[in-house]
Each structure stands twice: as structure tokens, then as C-alpha cells.
């Protein structure tokens, strides 16, 4: 139509359309806040709490306590981060953690190897089943993992005689070290969670798999047409999430020397909250591992602070958590709007 004959020689300077809409400064600031907002709030909260409560809050012991409390939720939230970036959701993790803890304690009768392999095997298998139903049979993640939530909790109760038996891990079992030993003063769960986050971060940012997960969450149709093995990647995603929840359960059982079938109720919701607070879009396609870490720590710091205040009941704590989640999400929402996501 235009009869332009200079094709092939057009340079960037002549291409006003080549960058249709360079991001404005406001958009870039918003993007930064989206990524680092949770970290920022975390730092501010820690500083303020340190000033207000002094050494009651700002002590190495207390910080280590916070880190340890965070490590269980952290492992679960790590798997959840990949799944949410990939456009899915995993509601089964809380039940899987409980099931794993029960199986760890139950398995410890047959030695420490059984105490670790049994729960990891079962939780990994349930995660794998989730992944196959979601990835291969293309069922909705919400409903599949909801069923897994019921199933895993049911299994945990079945193993423990409807919750009437609380299995104990005999003292001296090597598996207890996973929850109770420390290396240069840092307990093993913290180290394991830290290592897991490091690996997760590298995989998301630097491995082919991570980019593929973001592509699936960003546009599954496009990812399929670009030839990504979507079904397989989803199977891996949910299997790993199940394994991580199982691992967290092993650590919880080792920490408390017992496996209770009633723990971890609502943990999936906490994990989702931590991931969302960390700047991962619940609609998928964008997210960060350090953000999730900050989200997990933030939730635990707030719990810790509320405990410091002491006068607040645990009910109030729930109300505060709810309100806090709403505020964070509202802020995120406005940031996302600014970036026109």
C-alpha cells in the first residue's frame, strides 16, 4: 500500500513503532515495588519492632526462632510459588504436611530410613497424581488439589486410628536430628529451607524449566504452540510441591518428635498468602522466589510481634492477618494497574 522500497535498510531511528510503549518511570517504579515490596515492608517491620520491643524482639535467639518457624511454611510456599507462577494452585499442601508428619512418626518404628522415605514417597506420589490429573487429564487444579486435600487428611486419620493415636519418634532415632540438630547454632530445618530456596531461585531465574513455568502461566496456549512439554512440566510442578510439603512434614515431625494428624489445617492458605504478598501474580506468569521468602518471613515476624505484645488474643491475631492480607493485596493491585498488567 505504501510502496516503501527501502525494506531491509530501515533502522531503529526510523521505526517509531518499534517500541510502541516504552515503560514510563511510574510503571518501572511500580514493577520494582511489586518485586521488592514485601522485602521493604519486612525490613521496616523488623526495624520498627526492634525499636519498640528492643532486645525482646531483636535478639539472635528470637531471629532464629522466626527463621525456624518460617522454614516449614517456607518449603510449602516454595512449591506453591512455582505452581502459582505456572497458573495453578495447590490446596493439598497442608494436608500433605500432616500426612507426612504422621507417616514419619509411624515409619520411625521401622528405622530412620523408613521415617524419611515413606512420607516422601507417599506425598510425592499424591503430588504426582495431582500433576497427572491436572497436566495430562487437564482437570482444574483447584478441584483436583481440593480432592487431594480431603484424601490426604483422610489418609492421615486412617493411619492414626481417626487421630486417636499420636505416634512418637523414639529418642535416639537419627531422623530426629533433622528437626533438632544444629550446625554452628543454626537448626537443620533453617538450613534445608535455605538451600531449597537457593535451588528454587536458580531454577526459576536461570534454568529453562523456570522460564517455561512462567510461559505456561503467562499464556498456556502460546506455550503449547511454542512446543513446550506442558503436561510434563505441570506433573513435575505438582510432584515437587507434594515432595516439599512432605519434606516440611518430616521436619515438623522430627522437630516435635511426633506426628499429629490435625496439624497444618489452613497451611495452604497461609502459603498462598505468603506467595501473593511476595509479589507473585495469582493469575500466573510473573513472580519471584525472594519475594516469597520475604512474604513467609513477614507473616512469621508479624506473628512473633503479636506474641510480643502479649495482650492480644490469638483471635485478634487472625483478624490482623486477614486485614494485613487485604491491605497487601490492595497495594499490589494498584501497583499492577500502574504497570498495566
Amino acid at each position, binding site marked *: 500500500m505504501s510502496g516503501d522500497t527501502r525494506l531491509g535498510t530501515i533502522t531503529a531511528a526510523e521505526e517509531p513503532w518499534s517500541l510502541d510503549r516504552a515503560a514510563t518511570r511510574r510503571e518501572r517504579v511500580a514493577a520494582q515495588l511489586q518485586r521488592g515490596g514485601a522485602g521493604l515492608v519486612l525490613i521496616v517491620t523488623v526495624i520498627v519492632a526492634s525499636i519498640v520491643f528492643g532486645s525482646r524482639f531483636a535478639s539472635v535467639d528470637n531471629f532464629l526462632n522466626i527463621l525456624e518457624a518460617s522454614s516449614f511454611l517456607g518449603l510449602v510456599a516454595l512449591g506453591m510459588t512455582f505452581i502459582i507462577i505456572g497458573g495453578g*494452585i495447590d490446596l493439598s499442601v497442608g494436608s500433605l504436611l500432616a500426612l507426612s508428619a504422621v507417616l514419619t512418626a509411624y515409619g520411625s518404628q521401622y528405622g530412620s530410613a523408613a521415617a524419611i522415605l515413606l512420607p516422601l514417597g507417599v506425598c510425592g506420589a499424591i503430588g504426582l497424581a495431582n500433576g497427572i*490429573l491436572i497436566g495430562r*487429564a*487437564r*482437570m*482444574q487444579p*483447584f*478441584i*483436583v488439589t*481440593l*480432592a*487431594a*486435600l*480431603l*484424601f490426604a*487428611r*483422610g*489418609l*492421615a*486419620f*486412617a493411619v492414626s486410628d*481417626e487421630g486417636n493415636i499420636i505416634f512418637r519418634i523414639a529418642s535416639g532415632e537419627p531422623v530426629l536430628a533433622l528437626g533438632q540438630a544444629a550446625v554452628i547454632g543454626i537448626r537443620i530445618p533453617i538450613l534445608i529451607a535455605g538451600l531449597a530456596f537457593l535451588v528454587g531461585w536458580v531454577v526459576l531465574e536461570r534454568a529453562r524449566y523456570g522460564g517455561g513455568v512462567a510461559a505456561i502461566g503467562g499464556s498456556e496456549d502460546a506455550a503449547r504452540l511454542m512446543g513446550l512439554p506442558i503436561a510434563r512440566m505441570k506433573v513435575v510442578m505438582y510432584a515437587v510441591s507434594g515432595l516439599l510439603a512432605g519434606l516440611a512434614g518430616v521436619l515438623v515431625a522430627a522437630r516435635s518428635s511426633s506426628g499429629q494428624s490435625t496439624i497444618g489445617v*489452613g497451611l495452604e*492458605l497461609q502459603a*498462598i*498468602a505468603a506467595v*501473593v504478598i511476595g509479589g507473585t501474580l*495469582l*493469575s500466573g506468569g510473573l513472580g519471584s522466589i525472594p519475594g516469597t521468602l520475604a512474604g513467609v518471613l513477614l507473616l512469621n515476624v508479624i506473628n512473633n510481634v503479636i506474641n510480643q505484645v502479649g495482650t492480644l*488474643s490469638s*483471635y*485478634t*491475631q*487472625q*483478624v*490482623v*492477618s*486477614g*486485614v494485613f*492480607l*487485604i491491605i497487601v*493485596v*490492595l497495594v499490589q*493491585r494498584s501497583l499492577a*494497574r500502574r504497570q498495566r498488567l
Partner: protein
Amino acid sequence: MAWTTRNGVYVALIVLIAFNLVATRGFATVDNARLQLVQVVPVAIIALGMAVVIGTRGIDLSVGSVMAISSALLALYLGYGAVVAIAVALVGGLLVGLVNGVLIARFGIQPIVATLALLVGGRGLALVIANGRLTEIFDPTLGIIGSARVGGVPLVVLVAVAIAVVVAVLITRTTFGRYVVAIGGNPEASALAGVPVRRVILGAYVLCAVLAAVAGIIQTARLSAADPSFVGNLIELSAITAVVVGGTPLSGGRVRILGTLAGALLMQLIGATLISHNLPDSATRMVQALIILAAVFVQRDRALS
């Protein structure tokens, strides 16, 4: 829509009832029928509201907490008379629904996150209202609600049926209902066709929360106690299950009222059947999980095409 999706829940219900008539002693009695119906009422009422919300492509995780709030408010205001207390409890539900609706419709927060916040915060609020305690209730009006029968049918069952009829008319015969499924089917197109998207979504969440409050009141009346730490725990999952098993797709755009009721009844009877055959609660859960999967697996074809 595949035939199995449309009718699978009814077939399963008939098969289950037939099985029980043959194999379960004491199943075919009026007392048992009454018991099963009364027990399914709270889930059924909440599932009706949930079906409407799911029809708009939403989800409401906060219904259990709304039950707890309405239960706690009912106990707190019972001193002013049952009518006032019930009104306050309903208003409490309405307010939670408004907050949900505003967060979702006005601020564009994903339903799962907004109602998750209310699930966590709402339960805490209920405990704060009740000061964390179980309150026993002795009130003649509530007693009537909880245990009265009309022509042999428990009053609460009639209430549930009446609500189902109202919701069915709302969905099939009013502009609101048409708008709900249109928004669930394609929100952008609906907005451009002049559908008041925000108001309809707000309405759906308010409706769902008010119905949850009703369920909370009924449960409290039936148990003669307000126990905000336990009432409605995990009922959101049962309600979602009933809706999905009943053939309403989670992806929105369709609301099936009768299917939802059948779904609720099916899950109730499965539990009852297993218990009456001496299977433990844990087995019930696992079987329910498998049934949810089967129901969704049958629906899957539509999503694939």
C-alpha cells in the same frame, strides 16, 4: 454439555439410595430421611449461594467464617429478643458479603484471595465477638426454628426448599440471573453490552454471605449453642464440592440449582452410608475426594474442546 455432566449426579444419587434401601438397615425410615435432610440443610443453603458466585467465575471461601460470625452475633444479641438477634446476624453476614464484593468488584482482587482474607479474619472476628467461648442458648423462638416440624417435615428443611425456589427463580427468571451467567461466560463482553458487572458481582457475594448467615443461624438453633471456633469449619469445601458435583462448572457461565441440591444430598448420603456400614470418618473423606475427582473428570470434555 455431555449427558453425564448434566445427569450424572442424579444417577449417582438414585444408585446410592437404591443401594441403601437394599443394604442398609434402618435406611428406609421416616426418621432417617428426616435426619439426613436436616443434616444437609446448612451445606445445601450455602451451596446455593456458592453456585451463584461460581456462576460469575468467582469463589467464596469465607462462608464458614460467616457462619461463625452470624452464630456469635446471634448469641451476643439474644438478650434483645430472637428477632433482633437474627436480624443482627443476617446484617453481619450482609456486611461480610459487602466487603467481599467491594474487594472483588470494585478493587478487582481475585475472589480466592479476597475471600481467603475474610476466611482468616472472619473466623478471628467471630472468636473476638464470642470471646472465644462456646455459648449455650436457651431461647424458645430459636428452639422452634431448630426442631419444629410442619406436617412431619422439619421447618429447617422447608426453609432450605424455600430458599432454593427463590434462588432458582432469581437465576432463571430475572435480569440478575441472566447477568450472572453472562458475566461468568464473558465479563468483557458483558460490560460492553451494558451489564452492570460490578453491581451484579457485588450482589452475588452479598447473596452468598447472607445465605451463609442463614445457615449459621439454623446450625446454632439446631445445636442450641454458638460455637464460633467450630461452626462452619471447612464447609466452604463441602459447598464447592456440592456445586461442582452438581454440574456447575468452576469456570462460570452456568448455574445449576437442582444439580447443586442433589450434589449436596449425594455427599451427605455418601457420608451417612459409610458411617452406617461402620467405615470410619477418614474413609468417608477419601471416598468423597474420589467422587469429586470422578465428577470433574466427567465434566472435563467440555473444558478440552
